[in-house]
């Protein structure tokens, strides 16, 4: 059963004034379908058209052309009806009232969504427990850290039991631990409640940890649509390590690893994970050198997109 369906959906914006006024195409003829219960990562670099797509699918923006349905409803003509059945979280825009506590916000939202008072209170407590926010729910929102606030934002987003969860860059600005925690919570909501997840991000790690399918959008056009496992096999074949040694390591060479010195003691390593694992590289480094610090990151999305284009030519 389909949760989301789009057909040649496009959105133009006007830019400039007077004679310089021109139309900019933010989203161009996108067509895709999302099954109920699926976890889809909709990714792309800044300005790719991710947020514009999500705003059309939630009914905030009217498309210039094309069609879309979410849970069988046309978002921009049935926005309020749809709002009762979906939850939307924007990483860069809070939906909480900063002067209120999260519990007060949840109470107000329960009135807006016309939930039964007792059910809403019980659900608020359950969500606080599920999202590990029992100690946060009675604090004023303005006193919460970004990571804490995002957990409360998620509670507010799913209070009414949405069938589809739209998450627009929810991990932006979070530290690594908070990001990981947030991703785990989204997966739990999907597995325990069957909520369809539509996640936009420009963080490659969000794809690997949350989604089972990935759609890549660039310059308003879908350039890749596949299962994450297949994408990992075909595109995410490198990990980047930044290693700071206690003292200059001299000549550093590991088979399957591309080494780039950044200074006497700091080296950038590109690990080809088809040939050896990050763990093997770490073991080798730790055995042979005194290491001051190591960070492991995914290749930037721009590199993944370049590989997608590269694979096509």
């Amino acid at each position, binding site marked *: 059963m389909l949760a989301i369906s789009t057909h040649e959906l496009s959105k133009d914006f006007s830019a400039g004034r007077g004679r310089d006024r021109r139309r900019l195409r933010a989203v161009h003829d996108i067509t895709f379908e999302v099954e109920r219960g699926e976890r889809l990562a909709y990714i792309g670099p800044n300005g790719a058209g991710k947020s514009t797509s999500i705003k059309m699918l939630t009914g*905030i923006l009217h498309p210039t052309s094309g069609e879309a349905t979410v849970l069988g409803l046309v978002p921009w003509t049935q926005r309020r009806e749809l709002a009762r059945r979906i939850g939307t979280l924007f990483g860069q825009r809070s939906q909480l009232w900063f002067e209120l506590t999260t519990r007060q916000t949840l109470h107000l939202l329960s009135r807006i969504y016309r939930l039964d008072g007792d059910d809403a209170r019980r659900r608020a407590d359950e969500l606080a427990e599920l999202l590990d926010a029992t100690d946060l729910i009675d604090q004023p929102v303005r006193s919460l850290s970004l990571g804490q606030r995002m957990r409360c934002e998620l509670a507010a987003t799913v209070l009414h039991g949405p069938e589809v969860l739209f998450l627009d860059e929810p991990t932006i600005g979070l530290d690594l631990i908070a990001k990981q925690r947030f991703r785990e919570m989204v997966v739990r909501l999907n597995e325990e409640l069957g909520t369809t997840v539509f996640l936009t991000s420009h963080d490659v790690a969000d794809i690997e940890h949350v989604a089972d399918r990935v759609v890549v959008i660039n310059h308003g056009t879908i350039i890749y649509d596949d299962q994450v496992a297949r994408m990992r096999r075909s595109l995410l074949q490198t990990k980047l390590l930044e290693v700071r040694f206690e003292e200059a390591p001299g000549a550093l060479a590991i088979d399957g690893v591309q080494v780039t010195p950044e200074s006497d003691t700091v080296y950038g390593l590109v690990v080809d994970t088809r040939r050896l694992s990050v763990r093997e590289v770490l073991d080798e480094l730790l055995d042979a050198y005194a290491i001051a610090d190591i960070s492991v990151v995914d290749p930037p999305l721009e590199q993944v997109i370049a590989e997608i284009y590269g694979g096509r030519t």
Partner: protein
Amino acid sequence: MNALAAQALISARRALHQRGELAVRVAFYAIILVIFSALWSAAAGANGGSISGYDAHSLLWYVAAAEGSVIATKPRMIESIGWDISSGAIVTEMLRPASVVGLRLAAELGEALVRLVCSLAVGGVIVWLYVGQPPSAAGIALFVPASFLAVGCNLAAQHAFAGAAFWLRDARSTWFLYQKLVFLLGGMLLPLEFLPTALADVARALPFASMAYVPARLASGHVEPWLLLVQAAWLAGLLACAGGVFWAGERRLEVVGG
């Protein structure tokens, strides 16, 4: 309790808890009232005891009611609503299954009514001490609902004006214009009877008079119950106008990026 009532109640509680902000606003109102009391007493005295049918006694009750009715709403509200629209912050409100402007009005109304009651309580005591009891008990009885209607008209009009940001992207100029209209044509600074006759007639026909002049006219001892009907009609019209502006604006909203 429905969403609008819950929103208004929560906002009223919040306004009550923000004691510092409430105290500063009431103190500001009291200072203005003391200055205006001295000013208008002197003006009435210099004019043989009354100006355009208002003696010093009724003038001071007029000023207390007019200033109190307007000061209950947030300053620069049009600017802040306009910013929420032009920055795209309003999109989170559009994702709720409720009227954006309805919830905003309920929130502002809850806060404004708390400020109205506190300001008028202090203002009433000051003026009573200065010139004695209100000129007419019936006038004061009519003033109570009129002051609530005045706040409602003011909030609805500000939302209607602020909705211009859906088209203009910047509501600062709208706020500047609106403020001057309420000050002069709304009868906040001085009774409309003080204006040239033609201008006063125009001002009475505009919605701004319902925001300050009407409650002040009633509090100053003019028992004119039909003014409440004028206010109620303007309130309905302004609410429809604010709702219409947001309805149309939400359909043409252009928010680029996250």
